[in-house]
């Protein structure tokens, strides 16, 4: 698979991560681990109702309680007008986030924040919350996405008119948006098809399930200058959100990145941070806030539950003739489900002439949904890859051969617009087919399923600095929180460019005032984008090292080359000089022009799309309906794995989250609109004893837009598992499950109906 097979010294190796010792000894400082002298505890009062008008909020008794230093409601933050809801070209609607952080006029879900207090102890803060008097006018609520689309459904937002339809609707509804992507003519395609399969599917809302609850500490001095420490997937985003939501200038505060205990998309957006900053500014004291697990489930995340229909037609020879899908996604209380990405990714692994995908973004009385690892794509893939499996079965084709016959390749035009450049879809499917797992025998009550997946990967903005120290070591400074080992990748990239050892380099994730702007750690972009910035900054250093050597030798800089960590004359014509190592040049920096410091700030493009192919074996207990995954192999194009262990880790982690989505996890609401399972006991994520080892195969089809060929790797591994598990269950039982999760009672009922 290794097309160019270049030889690297550090890229592709597996060094111990630079922050490792701190994380195995308990030293690493995560969000809740910070404390400051004179610190207050902040807590939030949350709505017990799924939908209600806030008639009045009386905080006077709470504010009068001894030990309470600040109380806040939405009245303390500026209302953000509709025409000023965005910052720059980022897609975040801050008007919505403002109303999500502290409810304004209405509460829209069980757990919606209503008011906040800061007090001298947690017990006093709790007592203060109990003294806040809220007069709710309870309104009818709607939880299910299909119910929310009905004409008689309770409407959440009076100013929400469906976008993307003509003519513009004359009355508000819960359907925020309709999107459509088409290619060719599906009607004509279906007319030619020999076999057509159409199915409807449902999936439930699932939470990102990071183990670290949201936490923050904010501190404000008398001159209004503030500091915020928090875990997030982007402290520059937290800065932007706090500035926008509170109406303060960015220069008035710094955001420091705490170590982040998992995010998966769920720590992109602001929840506690602006509130803690507000309480700190009101009280003039440090305020620490930490969510309980129940708050995490009720008020953050999750990703959308969905209803979808998929219709695919194929010819006898296995060519797909036409494909249609309608995806209806829950957005939660405010618009913004990932339905667009679901529509764009679902059919992307395939070269199909006639495609039509329609998506609906629908609000209902649930927490505002948030990104979750390849947002939208796993849901679309679940339906589409299930139907593809059924077609392969009907046509008596091997499911991987069927996919290979239709696989996207260089030059394929995807329904969502672009024409693919160099991609690894075929290589990935082929590697799956060639894996020993694919031909291994199955035991009784076992079945095997396969599924493919696609993710775009993102690029975006990043800044990095490489500072050479006087002893010949170097500090790499960048601004993307390290959520899963990226410090190691940054140090490897810098070591590769500079030609010095990995352990001579210390990577640092800097605060918002210590490095230029960086987009969030998301979209599988950090190793690609921040890595590019580090690469460019290190190249800047190499340029300076050559200049310094030229100066020390008194020759032209063009006559100096940098190879394997030393400056040499480019040829014997340039002169006869002993090579100068980085440390030699660094020691003379003060006499040759001052500190050696490389910088890069860039807006990257060309993140290479990536593909995955998964093989899953399950065993079904026919008596209880329990499904056990007994073997799993994930194959994925990484472009180039900088640190293969962490690429494998991303693949394994994504697979297991997908297995949880397929088998166990779901948000369960009562008829009262309240979340019934806001804890890890009843919202059951996979545990070690549920699982086998997750085998991985890294395929490397280098991304031509990156110096090492990197493609993002973090997200695509969650795309295929739900379909792979479902297809394996169909193979084991003959029953095709069209609703997730496939919990034992659901499968048992289906087995009884199906047989």
């Amino acid at each position, binding site marked *: 698979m290794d097309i160019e097979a270049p030889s690297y010294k550090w890229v592709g190796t*597996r060094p*111990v*991560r630079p*922050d*490792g*010792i701190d*994380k*195995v*000894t*308990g*030293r*690493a*400082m*995560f969000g*809740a*681990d910070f*404390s400051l002298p004179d610190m207050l505890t902040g807590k939030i009062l949350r709505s017990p109702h799924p939908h209600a008008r806030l008639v009045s909020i009386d905080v006077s008794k709470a504010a009068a309680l001894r030990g309470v230093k600040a109380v806040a409601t939405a009245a303390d933050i500026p209302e953000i007008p509709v025409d000023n809801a965005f910052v720059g070209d980022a897609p975040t609607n801050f008007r919505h986030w403002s109303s999500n952080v502290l409810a304004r006029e209405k509460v829209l879900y069980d757990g919606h924040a209503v008011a906040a207090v800061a007090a001298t102890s947690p*017990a006093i803060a709790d007592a203060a919350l109990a003294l806040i008097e809220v007069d709710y006018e309870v309104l009818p609520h709607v939880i299910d996405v299909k119910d929310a689309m009905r004409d008689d459904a309770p409407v959440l937002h009076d100013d929400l008119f469906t976008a993307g339809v003509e003519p513009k609707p004359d009355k508000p509804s819960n359907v925020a948006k309709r999107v459509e992507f088409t290619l060719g003519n599906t009607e004509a395609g279906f007319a030619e098809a020999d076999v057509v399969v159409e199915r409807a599917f449902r999936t439930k809302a699932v939470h*990102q*399930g*990071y*183990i*670290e*609850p949201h936490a923050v500490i904010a501190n404000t001095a008398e001159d209004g200058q503030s500091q915020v420490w928090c875990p997030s997937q982007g402290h520059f985003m937290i800065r932007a959100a706090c500035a926008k939501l509170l109406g303060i200038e960015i220069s008035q505060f710094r955001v420091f990145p705490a*170590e*982040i*205990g*998992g*995010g*998966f998309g769920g720590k992109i957006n602001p929840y506690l941070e602006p509130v803690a900053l507000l309480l700190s500014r009101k009280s003039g004291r440090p305020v620490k806030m*930490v969510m*309980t*697990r129940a708050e995490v489930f009720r008020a953050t995340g999750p990703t959308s539950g969905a209803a979808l229909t998929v219709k695919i037609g194929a010819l006898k020879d296995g060519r797909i003739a036409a494909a249609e899908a309608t995806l209806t996604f829950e957005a939660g209380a405010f618009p913004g489900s990932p339905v667009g990405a679901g529509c764009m990714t679902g059919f992307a692994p395939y070269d199909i002439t006639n495609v039509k995908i329609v998506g609906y973004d629908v609000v209902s009385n649930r927490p505002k949904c948030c990104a979750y690892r390849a947002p939208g794509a796993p849901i679309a893939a679940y339906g589409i890859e299930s139907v593809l499996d059924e077609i392969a079965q009907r046509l008596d084709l091997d499911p991987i051969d069927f996919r290979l016959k239709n696989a996207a390749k260089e030059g394929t035009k995807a329904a969502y617009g672009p024409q693919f450049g160099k991609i690894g879809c075929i290589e990935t499917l082929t590697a799956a087919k060639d894996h020993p797992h694919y031909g291994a025998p199955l035991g009784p009550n076992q079945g095997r399923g396969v599924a493919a997946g696609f993710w775009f990967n993102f690029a975006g903005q990043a800044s990095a600095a490489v500072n050479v120290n006087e002893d010949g070591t170097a500090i790499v400074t960048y601004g993307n929180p390290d*959520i*899963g*080992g990226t410090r190691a990748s940054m140090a490897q990239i810098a070591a590769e460019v500079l030609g010095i050892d990995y352990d001579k380099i210390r990577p640092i994730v800097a605060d918002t005032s210590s490095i230029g702007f960086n987009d969030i750690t998301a979209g599988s972009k950090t190793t690609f984008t921040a890595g590019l910035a580090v690469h460019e900054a290190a190249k800047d250093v190499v340029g300076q090292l050559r200049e310094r050597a030229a100066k020390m030798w008194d020759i032209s800089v063009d006559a100096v080359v940098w190879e394997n960590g030393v400056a040499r004359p480019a040829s014997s014509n340039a002169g006869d000089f002993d090579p100068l190592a980085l440390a030699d040049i660094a020691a003379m920096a003060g006499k040759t022009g001052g500190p050696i410091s490389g910088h890069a700030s860039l807006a990257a493009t060309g993140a290479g799309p990536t593909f995955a192919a998964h093989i899953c074996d399950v065993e079904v207990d026919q008596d209880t309906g329990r499904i056990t995954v007994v073997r799993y192999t994930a194959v994925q194009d990484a472009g180039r794995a900088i*640190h293969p*262990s*962490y690429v*494998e*880790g*991303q693949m*394994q*982690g*994504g*697979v*297991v*989250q997908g297995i949880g989505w397929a088998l166990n996890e779901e948000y369960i609401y009562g008829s009262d609109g309240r979340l019934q399972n806001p*804890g*890890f*006991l009843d919202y059951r*994520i*996979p*545990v*070690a*004893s*549920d*699982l086998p*080892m*997750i085998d991985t195969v890294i395929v490397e089809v280098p991304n031509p837009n990156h110096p090492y060929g990197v493609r993002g790797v973090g997200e695509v591994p969650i795309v295929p598992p739900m379909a792979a598990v479902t297809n394996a269950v169909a193979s084991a039982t003959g029953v095709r499950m069209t609703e997730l999760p496939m919990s034992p009672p659901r499968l048992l009922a289906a087995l009884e109906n199906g047989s």
Partner: protein
Amino acid sequence: MIKDHVSTTINGEPVEFLCDPRQTLLDVLRDELNLTGSKEGCSSGDCGACSVMLDGRVVCSCLVLGAEAEGREVETIEGMAQGETLHPLQRVFLEEAALQCGICTPGFLVAAKALLDRNPDPTETEVRYWLAGNLCRCTGYDKIVRSVLDAAAEMRGK
């Protein structure tokens, strides 16, 4: 509320503290003693991020009251390395990339050490069931389970 005076042993050192009778051992470790290596993921005993040893038994410190530490021996993640020498589990976790975000790692290490203390040669299944009370959302457990098995083999001198 009148605070309790508690005398206990933490990581081999005598420690005294005052705590609110309602405070959990986890709260005491983190908020009173600044031992923040034990993490709070759920406060209901479901995630295992707060795992510590209490008189040689692994417990969720969020389910133990601080006052219950009176006269007992507590071992936390902070006591696992001996000076600059990591415990083999800590070192193998790093070598084999058994952590991504790292929030669950202290709990896994404490629980895994408790397993190896009583069973130096566990099977994969034994490791998986022993660690079923520790949640990790990043790794899918593969590299964690392998690391425990490999550290066990190393400690047996293989």
